[in-house]
């Protein structure tokens, strides 16, 4: 493995290949910062360029955009509360409060560093354990996914700062919103008020509305709120020794969780980041600090989503099976170059296979190197007065949302979700569980109904299959543990919401 990896490094370190690795992560980073414009839009626009590049360079470029945008996404989440993907929703939870408390530089540094470690661990797993991970991923069928999502939903209701009952209610709201659109099992239209909703509500609309737009409305309705204090000295960007020490565990646990879930096609990356957040919070001695600018709450999910975005390439590279829409695009570029992605890729195209993997290694280093100096520049964004910054952001959100499906309905919905999000915040309901319910609800429904279809309605299948049974046991244990600790403590759940900040 190591020999082949070195072979890959020799490919990627050639100047004419290295430039594509650099270009990819750089473009990805910029795209990630722009609200609402995701890697998928960027990659599809750049696809024609790859007609003129060889397969290795195309793959390295497009893959760089993909994981580069993960980095960029956390910048917008931390500074402006604008998550573009489900995984950056979790980054908002503690990243944005940090920025509001004048610690934006520190938050960006911790996010970049955690992402780097997570990414590197993800690449290492990819090099050392791609084949065994593939074998495990293939053992996840419909019953396993259904049980995994149940565990995920439970974790989702743990991530709010307020009462778990309120979080759980918001998860249910999210699931209800996820029902809109064509039912995947029968094709029946549910709540499709207009043809634009046939494929459901856009995730980007919901995320941008509930988080970004609602925050802007909140600021607009509270005059004279001071611009957060900016600390730009190097000392303020770096964590203190005690803080640094507290990050080791979360980063490693986040990377492990991310590496595992990332390798599961389809579901992985979305679940990974908040599963790691929920894990940290559940087993923390100070769960009350989460959601108010707690560094472990930022570093664990950042490590997780970047590890996941690397191990997400495992099914793509070893089986030729794209785990999500972006991977499908990258595979499309390979196909256009006359290369058939599949299990033979590793054997037939070792230079391509290992070159791409080595480029992840190099790309993560490049990202860290360009990110640290840029932190001070990004933080300056916050110095722009709100009344000038916010109109620009609203316009960018609208453009970004529109670019996804070329749909005006989506733009109107985004603004409507903004108002809903504002009202929710006013009544101390949190938006994050809504989003997670929205992502996970349809996954649960699809996989549950698929299980019933394949196994003729036999419920016992969930306990007969070992992985599914294991996941079910985890879920049960988590519920029992929660109930037990609630009874033992006999006190209000830690972290009752602080008085509304405005």
């Amino acid at each position, binding site marked *: 493995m190591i020999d082949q990896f070195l072979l890959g490094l020799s490919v990627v370190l050639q100047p004419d290949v290295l430039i594509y690795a650099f270009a990819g992560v750089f473009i990805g980073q910029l795209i990630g910062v722009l609200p609402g414009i995701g890697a998928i839009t960027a990659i*599809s626009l750049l696809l024609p360029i790859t007609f003129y590049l060889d397969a290795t360079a195309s793959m390295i470029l497009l893959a760089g955009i993909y994981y580069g945008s993960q980095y960029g996404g956390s910048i917008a989440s931390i500074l402006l509360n604008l998550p573009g993907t489900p995984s950056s929703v979790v980054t908002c939870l503690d990243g944005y409060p940090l920025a509001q408390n004048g610690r934006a530089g520190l938050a960006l540094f911790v996010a970049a560093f955690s992402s780097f470690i997570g990414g590197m661990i993800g690449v290492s797993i990819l090099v050392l354990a791609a084949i065994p991970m593939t074998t495990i991923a293939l053992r996840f*069928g419909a019953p396993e996914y259904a049980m995994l999502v149940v565990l995920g939903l439970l974790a989702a209701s743990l991530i709010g700062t307020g009462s778990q009952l309120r979080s759980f209610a918001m998860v249910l709201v999210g699931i209800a919103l996820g029902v809109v659109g064509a039912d995947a099992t029968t094709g*029946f239209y549910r709540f499709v008020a207009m*043809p634009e909703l046939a494929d459901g509500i856009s995730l980007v609309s919901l995320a941008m509305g509930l988080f970004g737009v609602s925050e802007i409305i909140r600021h607009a309705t509270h005059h004279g709120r001071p611009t957060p204090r900016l600390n730009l000295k190097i000392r303020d960007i770096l964590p203190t020794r005690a803080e640094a020490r507290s990050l080791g565990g979360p980063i490693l646990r986040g990377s492990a969780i991310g590496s595992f879930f990332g390798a599961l096609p389809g579901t992985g990356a979305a679940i990974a980041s908040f599963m790691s957040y929920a894990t940290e919070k559940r087993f923390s001695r100070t769960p009350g600090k989460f959601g108010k600018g707690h560094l472990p709450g930022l570093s664990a999910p950042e490590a997780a989503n970047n590890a996941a975005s690397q191990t997400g390439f495992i099914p793509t590279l070893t*089986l030729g099976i794209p785990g999500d829409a972006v991977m499908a695009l990258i595979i499309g570029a390979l196909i256009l170059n006359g290369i*058939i992605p599949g299990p033979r890729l590793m054997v037939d195209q070792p230079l391509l296979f290992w070159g791409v993997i080595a480029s992840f290694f190099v790309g993560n280093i490049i990202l860290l190197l360009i990110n640290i100096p840029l932190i001070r520049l990004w933080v300056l964004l916050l110095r722009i007065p709100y009344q000038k910054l916010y109109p620009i952001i609203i316009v960018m959100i609208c453009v970004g949302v529109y670019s996804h499906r*070329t749909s005006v309905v989506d733009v109107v919905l985004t603004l409507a979700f903004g108002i809903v999000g504002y009202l929710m915040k006013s009544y101390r309901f949190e938006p994050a569980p809504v989003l997670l319910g929205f992502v996970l609800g349809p996954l649960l429904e699809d996989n549950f109904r698929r299980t019933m279809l394949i196994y003729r309605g036999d419920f016992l299948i969930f306990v007969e299959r070992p992985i599914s049974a294991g996941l079910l046991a985890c879920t049960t244990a988590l519920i029992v543990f929660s109930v037990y600790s609630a009874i033992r403590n006999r006190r209000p759940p830690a972290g009752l919401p602080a008085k509304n900040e405005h």
Partner: protein
Amino acid sequence: MFRTLMTTLPLTIALALPAVAQDSFPDRALRIVHGFGPGGNADTVSRIMAEQMTQGLGQPVVVESRPGAGGTVASGYVAGEEPDGYTLQLLVGGHAVAAGLYNELPYDSVEDFTFLSTVGQFPFFVAARAGEYESINALIEAALAEPGSIVIGHSGVGSTQHLTGELLGLETGAEFIHVPYQGGAAASTALMGGEVNLIIDTGTVIRGQADAGVYDILAVTSAERWPGYEDVPTLNETVAEGFDVISWTALGAPAGLPEDVEATLSEEIARVLELEDVRGQIEALGANPQGSTGEELQALVERQIAVWTEVIDSAEIERR
């Protein structure tokens, strides 16, 4: 003076417009609209065509993705646009399926379009895990012997892949269980993981696994054996005589395109489809690059609307 100007202005414009269209089409950017997400097959084919047509027509050709409701959002949009040649649509096989699948479409699938040319045609392949079935005949025999024992994974309810599986059941009398996945790749993963017994999908989904010896390709859905896969038998010659399913990509425009504009566009599409690069790219996508006349394309669409509407009715698939 002003009054005279205002009354004659519309007339002047009306007289001038056709002249402009005749002399200098195109004199501004064109767009190819399609109804699927960025990066899908339709998007990629659109971009391949747009790239070359930009060279040939001397005006930028941009690709516009308007995804939604199986491509019908885009078709409804294009049908309502001006038939001036500046708005084209990349149509796919699903255009014919939609005519049978949707209760109310905001357009007529044939009358509201000017059909220009096919771009590529491709068959579907029937694949199972290597060594599981000796041949397509063995598979159908197993299905007939124990109804409901064979599970087909497909890429979504109402997809051409799904309907092809339903048609196979109707033609052979075999009873399959059809399980929907989110796209062909997910169905393929399920086949590899052992959750389903069979998938019916395009070469791009199946080829990689077949080359590696993970899958056996049991049959092809076209009436004749497919170039490059000469050793794969057709369903037509083995278990279902007359079975003939291919899917396609094509270019169309709103109905009522001026004849000269139509001619310019058809000529340009024919030219692009002869280019070595383009042929190579379309072949790489698993399709046979093949142009046609507008009439041939329209006949193909009409024929497939009839077939799929019947399959949807016979298989009792819920209309939406």
